[in-house]
């Protein structure tokens, strides 16, 4: 536990908190986006916001794979699973994501579909080997962290000449999403001042792909580990860059991230996948070149080809603000449904499902602040 404890040490945290408080310019506001759901979760679970000065605001980003998967793709997954030949393998988190017409995978399973919860692509591969009479489809989601394992499983399936294994690929790309958010900023007042960059994703892709954020948009990025102390240190590094008038890609997560990333994992991805022309994201809409599909050489393992999937875009619940929240334009409490009609037990949007989702994290850990903040705002006005 020693390895973990030192990144949660309250004494060290107090020291960093004091440094942030001492160095922020009280005349301005710092708006930082933590891109990853992993950071959102750590910030909420450890109460990091309580240790930041009032003029440092953390805005939750779209880096939650469950949250950004659009309704249409969940509809596809349900359609796939209702084919009697198919065994659909998925992460447990996806089971409760709302699809069209109040459906979700959990209900599809209760209705007789063969849907199994797995921890990894390899679990799905194992099921395919053990049950050759079943058409095993793995519902692949995630950013560059989970893509290499999917690539590996597909290569293994090919090497073993497995005829009953395929992947319904929904892997998406981090830097493209980051660009979409920055390009979409229109309002000076709500524009971001810096980005807390992904931890695990960056171990794969390295620090280099974020350079456009500094070069083209003039905003600092600090790649941060997932422990609460990592996040606080990264916030301090962002504050320092801004105060010094610099913008660069800096790396707080030196213990795991290099400038160029993991070359082998990148090769595996390049070999097995190719860029889609465009892909729909919940919140960001249709983003060109933002997602992957299986390359032609592996087409036989592409569930979309094997089962003729034609995604029909479907609308979110119109009252759900997940889209604006994923773009960083709104907070969970800006949604009328938050905490009343929409709770973790009865999620109306994807952000309330995964523990990395902004709404779920705020509901589970942060709600107690709402009243006091409302009171403060009232007192101030």
């Amino acid at each position: 536990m020693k390895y973990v404890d030192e990144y949660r040490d309250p004494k060290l945290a107090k020291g960093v908190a004091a440094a942030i408080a001492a160095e922020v310019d009280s005349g301005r506001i710092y708006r930082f986006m933590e891109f990853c759901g992993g950071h959102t979760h750590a910030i909420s679970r450890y109460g990091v916001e309580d240790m930041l000065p009032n003029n440092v605001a953390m805005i939750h980003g779209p880096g939650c794979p469950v949250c950004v998967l659009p309704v249409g793709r969940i509809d596809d997954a349900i359609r796939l699973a209702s084919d009697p030949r198919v065994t659909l393998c998925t992460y447990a988190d996806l089971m409760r994501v709302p699809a069209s017409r109040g459906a979700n995978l959990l209900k599809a399973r209760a209705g007789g579909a063969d849907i199994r919860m797995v921890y990894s692509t390899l679990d799905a591969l194992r099921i395919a080997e053990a049950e050759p009479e079943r058409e095993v489809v793995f519902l692949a989601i995630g950013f560059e962290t989970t893509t290499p394992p999917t690539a590996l499983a597909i290569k293994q399936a090919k090497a073993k000449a497995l005829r009953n294994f395929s992947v319904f690929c929904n892997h998406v790309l981090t830097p493209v999403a980051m660009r979409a958010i920055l390009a979409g900023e229109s309002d000076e007042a709500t524009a971001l001042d810096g980005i807390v960059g992904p931890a695990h994703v960056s171990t794969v892709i390295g620090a280099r792909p974020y350079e456009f954020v500094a070069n083209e948009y003039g905003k600092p990025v600090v790649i941060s580990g997932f422990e609460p102390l990592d996040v606080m240190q990264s916030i301090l590094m962002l504050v320092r860059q801004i105060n010094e008038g610099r913008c660069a890609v800096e790396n707080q997560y030196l213990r795991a991230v290099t400038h160029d990333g993991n070359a082998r994992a990148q090769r595996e991805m390049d070999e097995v996948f190719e860029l889609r022309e465009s892909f729909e994201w919940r919140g960001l809409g249709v983003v060109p070149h933002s997602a992957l599909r299986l390359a032609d050489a592996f087409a036989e393992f592409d569930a979309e080809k094997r089962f003729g999937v034609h995604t029909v875009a479907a609308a979110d619940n119109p009252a759900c603000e997940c889209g604006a929240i994923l773009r960083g334009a709104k907070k969970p409490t800006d949604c009328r449904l938050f905490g009343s009609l929409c709770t973790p037990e009865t999620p109306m949007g994807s952000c309330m499902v995964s523990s990395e989702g902004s709404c779920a994290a705020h509901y589970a850990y942060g709600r107690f602040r709402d009243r006091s903040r409302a009171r403060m705002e009232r007192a101030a006005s």
Partner: protein
Amino acid sequence: MSLVMKPVRRKLDVRNGRVDLSHGSGGRAMAQLIADIFHDAFGNDWLRRNDDQASLDAQDGCLVMTTDGYVVSPLFFPGGDIGSLSVHGTINDIAMAGATPKYLSASFIIEEGFALADLKRIAQSMGDASRAADVPIVAGDTKIVERGKADGVFISTAGVGVLPHGLSLSSDKARPGDAVLISGSMGDHGVAIMSRRENLEFGVEIMSDSAALHGLTAAMVGAAGDALRVMRDPTRGGLAAALNEIAHQSNVGFMIDEELIPVKPQVAAACEFLGLDPLYVANEGKLMAICAPEAADVLLDAMRAHPLGREATLIGHVVEDERNFVEMTTRFGGGRIVDWLSGEQLPRIC
């Protein structure tokens, strides 16, 4: 010489035998199973009378009754098994009312093909637990179901206890200012089960804390009397669920301090690995108590004087809060709420 042959009574082949459907058919095989496994293990006069019910002396005070089903998987785990768990769990449910547990009943649903040796081992462990607790199992039932219709064995136990007139503990009695105490480290049972299921090793073997708590609760009632408001054993859903339930039932909130909640290092390490929070993990030999603030010290002394409460500690207070939040200062120094667990897929742990 009589011409009627008395059939030879074959002993049950406990070592290699398996439960089959005849053991549930109401015939001789069933009688033998009950006698050789259950009566042998539980050994008391009520059972030996072989009636369909047990007659118990009427008791002075309030009768307290509870029932609970046990479906834990795996059946055997470090620190206990489904048998001892089914005795401890039901005793504890009665003890949390401040009552003295008196009698138990046990009902078994056994899957065809279940090894008699395992059944014997489970029954023995139940008998041992009930004797150690001095709470006899006075009635029982056995059903055999076809292969695939159960998972080895399910046990359901019911219990009866007696509460002295005048004493009344209940989840709606917490008041702002009251102290919140726990009897020891959190998360041991659930993590013992899960690390066995996942075949995880964390240096030291993690043992379930499964234990009968009525000795400890008797000492607490003796020390604090009326000042004791609520007792709870934080089983499924862990401390978090217990606190949230009481917050709702008493219409209050809690303010607790993560730093004060003991968690064994190996349990913390396992939770980290499995992505769990020890506050949500089940305990089977720990309790949480809420008492008037002025009684906290006396109560803590009484708890610490008992072997099952040696690590007892204060973890926070009841506060006024119409939203019924359980707020916690994290070990890291920030604040958060401790919400109910929602939707996580946890294995059967009790």
